[in-house]
């Protein structure tokens, strides 16, 4: 669409581009910003060359989102300058930034669930499609939206309700909107797309589409990218900037670095090779299982799942987003009612699971969607912490709340888990994702559980906090806690689990042992996740991320939200 999209080589070499391409699309110089006494970023400078992918990496709280907020007009810097296309750029609002060709995909989804996809794609652009002032030309909108969807190669019907699509597809829609509306609708020749952790919610198929899209955009525009997934960062970036505690640590190119070194830059310490503490992996004892699930069904047409986990064991559950693995976790914990099946905790009887009773019997459940199900952001840390124990630990039998005990307990956990900047009274929204997750973890640690079910416990969590969470999980297994780990992060799945169950369409298609000395490879697991359940995945699967075969018929997956 863009006038310069014909060239597909990078870096640009054609003569007519040379003049402009010599400069940078975006130049950031000496940017500083503080909120009250807290210096969030100080003296940050970086460049985004034309037609390139630039990545900012850093731990949570390193200042990446603040930089994005400044660039997208949500806030202004205290000091420093931004130049876009050679001109000073200081957007007064998000709208102004968008008008200059800077679009952004936020970490949290911002699509309206109840309207058709095309309305979401063209949100804020309705004026373009109105005739006689008010009359909106729906057909033209649908045509324009279809072009965006086709350009992004998504399998989406733009007239369907947005909420009908699963989380991953919605994320793809949002990415397509940010990436393609500037060029396709507003005629911006060199858009700059800001992507804040865009892939953390994508399943593998959509991830592949995303990387295609990135390549496409890079032929005419630039992308500024924030991600915790370093392998992917190394794959797609032209330049990587490392931020630490609000300061720019270094600028590297992917050819000259590796994941290991980047981790070192980010946390300021060489990352131990035993990131997942594999040497501490327990061997499960042949004792009575800590949890037994029989005949659990999570999808209406799905098979029954039987599951036993023993004290000290971590059972990993992997699968695509529509595999039903999150539902399985919720069903076993009793957060949702399974379609069928029973669960026994410890020596208890087999019963239909119910979360309230399960927690009393020694189970803890950490949901994947932290902001919707894990924490109440506006409430104090202490309140969020004590939520799981209101019925016993923190109230007496007359129903009186034991506030002093609550505060003492939360302080102890803040210390033990190194939950930075948390106090009992501080609203959870003020904590970083990693620290919020530690509070959720503390909620269950306080109960000294026998079984923990974790759904993507490190989603949106920085490298340092991740490793601390892994350490806590190993401590728990040392004490004989049984853990069910549901995760989309393959390395985490492999590194932490004793054995791994691969789910497809609500059923277990494979069980892979993963002893510390003989871990399965990523390729094996990806192969199992994508394999046709009918046949064994015998043919060698192509290597990890970037060459995953698209399934023959991409089915529309409707993971009903409960």
């Amino acid at each position, binding site marked *: 669409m863009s006038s310069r999209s014909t060239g597909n080589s990078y870096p640009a070499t054609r003569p007519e581009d040379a003049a402009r391409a010599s400069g940078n699309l975006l130049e950031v110089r000496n940017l500083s910003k503080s909120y009250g006494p807290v210096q969030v970023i100080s003296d940050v400078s970086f460049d985004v060359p034309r037609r390139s992918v630039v990545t900012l990496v850093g731990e*949570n709280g390193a200042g990446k*989102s603040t930089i994005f907020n400044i660039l997208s007009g949500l806030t202004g810097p205290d000091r420093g300058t931004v130049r876009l296309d050679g001109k000073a750029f200081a957007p007064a609002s998000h709208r102004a930034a968008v008008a200059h060709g800077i679009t952004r995909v936020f970490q949290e989804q911002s699509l309206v669930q109840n309207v058709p996809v095309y309305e979401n794609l063209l949100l804020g652009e309705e004026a373009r499609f109105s005739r006689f002032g008010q009359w909106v030309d729906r057909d033209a909108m649908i045509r324009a939206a279809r072009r965006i969807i086709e350009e992004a190669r998504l399998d989406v019907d733009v007239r369907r309700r947005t909420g009908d699509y699963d989380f991953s597809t919605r994320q793809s829609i949002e990415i397509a909107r940010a990436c393609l509306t500037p060029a396709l609708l507003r005629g911006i020749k060199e858009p700059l797309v800001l992507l804040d952790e865009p892939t953390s919610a994508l399943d593998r198929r959509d991830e592949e589409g995303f990387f295609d899209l990135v390549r496409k955009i890079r032929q005419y525009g630039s992308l500024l990218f924030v991600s915790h997934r370093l392998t992917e960062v190394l794959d797609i970036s032209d330049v990587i900037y490392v931020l630490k505690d609000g300061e720019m640590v270094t600028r590297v190119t992917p050819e000259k670095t590796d994941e290991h070194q980047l981790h070192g830059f980010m946390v300021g310490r060489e990352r131990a090779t035993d990131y997942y503490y594999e040497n501490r992996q327990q061997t499960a004892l042949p004792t009575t299982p800590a949890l037994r699930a029989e005949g659990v069904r999570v999808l209406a047409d799905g098979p029954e799942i039987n599951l036993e986990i023993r004290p000290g064991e971590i059972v990993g559950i992997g699968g695509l987003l529509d595999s039903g693995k999150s539902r399985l976790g919720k069903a076993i914990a009793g957060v949702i009612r399974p379609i069928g099946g029973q669960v026994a905790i410890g020596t208890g009887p087999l019963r239909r699971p119910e979360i309230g009773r399960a927690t009393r019997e020694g189970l803890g*459940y950490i949901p994947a969607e932290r902001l919707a199900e894990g924490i*109440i952001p*506006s*409430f104090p840390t202490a309140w969020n912490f004590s939520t799981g124990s*209101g019925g016993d630990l923190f*109230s007496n039998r007359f129903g009186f*709340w034991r506030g002093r005990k609550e505060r003492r307990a939360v302080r102890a956990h803040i210390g033990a888990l190194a939950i930075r900047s948390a106090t*009992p009274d501080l609203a959870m929204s003020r904590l970083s994702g990693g620290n919020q997750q530690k509070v959720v973890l503390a909620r269950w640690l306080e109960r000294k559980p026998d079984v923990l079910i974790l759904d993507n416990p490190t989603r949106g969590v920085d490298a340092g906090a991740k490793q601390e969470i892994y350490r806590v999980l190993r401590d728990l297994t040392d004490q004989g806690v049984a853990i069910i780990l549901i995760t989309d992060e393959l390395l985490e799945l492999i590194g932490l689990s004793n054995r791994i169950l691969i789910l497809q369409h609500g059923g277990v298609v494979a069980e892979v042992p993963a002893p510390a000395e003989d871990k399965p490879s990523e390729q094996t697991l990806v192969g199992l996740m994508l394999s046709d359940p009918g046949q064994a995945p015998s043919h060698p699967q192509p290597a990890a991320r970037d060459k995953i075969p698209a399934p023959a018929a991409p089915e529309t997956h409707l993971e009903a939200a409960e």
Partner: protein
Amino acid sequence: MTTTPHPQGRTFLSPLTSLFSRVETSLWFPIGVVLALFVFFSLMTDSFATLRNFSAVSGQAATLLIVCLGATFIVLMGSIDLSVGAIVLLVGAVSVTVLNALNIGWLVIPFAALVGAGLGLVNGLIYTKGKIPSFIVTLGTLSVFSGIALTLLDGRAIQFNAPGLENISIGQWIPRLPNIALWAILAWVVLVFIGQRTRFGRYMYLIGGGEQVARTAGVPVARYKLYAFALSGLLAGFGAILAVARLGAAGPSLGSDLLLNSLAAIVVGGTSLAGGVGGVHRTLIGVLIIAILDNGLNLMGVSQFLQMIIKGLVVIAAVLVSRKSGADQVIK
């Protein structure tokens, strides 16, 4: 990354954990409104700042306060109870009928409270078992309860026949303070304690702030919703019998102004209809604002119709001013 630290902060939820040691800063504004109204009416009319008038105001405000206490918990947990006025009417009608038929004397007080709790429980059961929005449920029962009550009363006011019973409301164990106001203050203290220092209170905040979060953490959400509706009904029943004792009869207009006044008082006090923010302690201030406004405007001789206009504007203005400026929240 961290969520963007909001410059405006979230002081409105500065922890309510310790009740008397800290007063929320956001409370100063509504308290200021009460004082301003007080000064204004004192200057405008001679009869406002008199002991006799205070007795009258406290008597009028007491029923409203008692009824609002339970309803505040409902609003706090993100639901709504439109039926409190109807419960007052029905409990009043039933109590008078029973009192005249059985001559149970003082026992009518716990009887009324229990009938109220039962009606609240009906609301709660339909709400939690039927999974119908509380607005619809209580809108329906509002009509049902009123209809039953008016059938019982046959559209007329019925006097009760129990000598001395009126003393529980209009007697003055503390000089110049009608007993009904004393009851209201006692109920307020107890309910503030329940709100701030008990499991029930905490769960109300949790359910209002994040029902899904509470449920995922194992909080028995449905059971506590039932409790809340039963409590709301119980207090409405208690308020009803006190109002009946004060008036000496139950008539068709009993509780008719409670629907709007209770919601107005709760919201003006600072409990958000979105749930999770506010509390019973604040509702006292809302009730005072509504009651003083009513009384003061009456004394000034303002017409009923103009009073309605003023009251409506005050409700909107109070919420407008106390709302956090710049907070980009979804308003429904």
